[in-house]
């Protein structure tokens, strides 16, 4: 992978970019791992309601040291706090929020995203691996908008945005937008439309790092 002259976003910068697209009043589920970072970049003047599968709505930042409560954790099993106006509920109601279309946006990590919006993020299909799915499939089918946040390529430089999935699917046609360290892509009926690229990136370079045909929509 030959970096010419473009800037690669850090994980925090991808999170910061994605955070800008979350509107006031949105009900949002941030997937375990990278997407969780978005919480740090949500502007204070907006009310964004964070949902966690294990029965929290409107939870807040991590507690101060020594204030951790083992019974107040998010789906990533990290300690959190509650905002005034938050609520607790059981797993049935929590997944009703997700599957019933009440969550406005979920942001998920990905192994692969296909040109048609298929998402793979729960299994690499390795035969000796223990499968584990958690709530990923429920978020993929349930949220009004599914955002993916991922590095543009794997550590070994293979594309993660592909024409068709080679890994097992999490949800069909579910992804609406992809935030990578190189660009922002909208999944549209016409294909993958690149709306933003990092400084110094050319569309041709980006296409070369991608396993599916891109549309230049940066203008």
């Amino acid at each position, binding site marked *: 992978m030959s970096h010419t002259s473009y800037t690669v976003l850090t994980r925090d910068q991808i999170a910061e970019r994605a955070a800008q697209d979350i509107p006031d009043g949105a009900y949002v589920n941030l997937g375990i791992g990278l997407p969780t970072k978005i919480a740090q970049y949500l502007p204070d003047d907006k009310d964004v309601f964070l949902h966690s599968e294990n029965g929290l709505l409107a939870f807040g930042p991590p507690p101060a040291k020594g204030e951790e409560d083992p019974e107040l954790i998010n789906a990533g099993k990290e300690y959190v706090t509650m905002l005034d*106006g938050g*609520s*607790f509920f059981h797993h*049935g109601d929590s997944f009703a929020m997700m*599957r*019933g279309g*009440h969550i406005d946006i979920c942001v998920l990590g990905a192994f692969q995203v296909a040109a048609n919006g298929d998402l793979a993020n729960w299994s690499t299909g390795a035969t000796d691996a223990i499968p584990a799915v958690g709530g990923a499939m429920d978020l993929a089918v349930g949220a009004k908008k599914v955002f993916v946040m991922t590095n543009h390529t794997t550590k070994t430089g293979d594309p993660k945005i592909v024409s068709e999935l080679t890994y097992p699917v999490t949800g069909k046609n579910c992804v609406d937008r992809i935030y990578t360290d190189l660009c922002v892509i909208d999944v549209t009926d016409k294909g993958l439309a690149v709306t933003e690229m990092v400084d110094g990136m050319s569309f041709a370079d980006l296409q070369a790092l991608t396993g599916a045909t891109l549309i230049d929509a940066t203008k």
Partner: protein
Amino acid sequence: MINKADKSITDVLSQIKDGATIMIGGFGTAGQPAELIDGLINLGVKDLVIINNNAGNGDHGLAKLLKTGAVRKIICSFPRQSDSWVFDELYHAGKIELELVPQGNLACRIQAAGMGLGAVYTPTGFGTLLAEGKETRHIDGKDYVLEYPLKADFALIKASKGDRWGNLVYRKSARNFGPIMAMAADVTIAQVSETVDLGELDPEHVITPGIFVQHVVQIQPASTEPASDESASTATTATA
């Protein structure tokens, strides 16, 4: 900053258009959102489909709405009551359509909509007139009827207290259909006796989390029940 409690009844209800499907909370008069129904009558929309447990009592509330001729169809479990003369007359005159649903199927179909299910096999009604023409299945030694979700454009419900994020608590048996209807409608409008500050509702005690509620409208206490023996929380008026 989100404030779901900043509009008047008139403003909130103005988004309801002719032909809307509307869930209305309440079991008898307990939990019936009387002021929202009055607002709906004043709005003058027509061709409505109403989902409620009953079909109105006396000449007020839901019965009054029916009387205006605004309702094309009602989906309910128990229309016939000693004081349901408004519905009775419309029904016998062929001026209103009735879909009769066993109460548990009504609740369950509303829940199925809120949960995002495609359909459910329910035990109730198998072998009866109310399952005629419906798909059935024998599962694990028992018979079931396939029933589909009941969704709505709007839910009009009554709660006891609400905050500006839409969190609600109810009072006694006025809870009934409110929480499940709030989950099954695109837009839920809750009338409350009291609007409280964010944080006043204990997160352990919230019955309907704000995600299910789009608007909260405070009704002047004088117009509802006499002062009630509410639980201990401080009853400051909200700034929200």
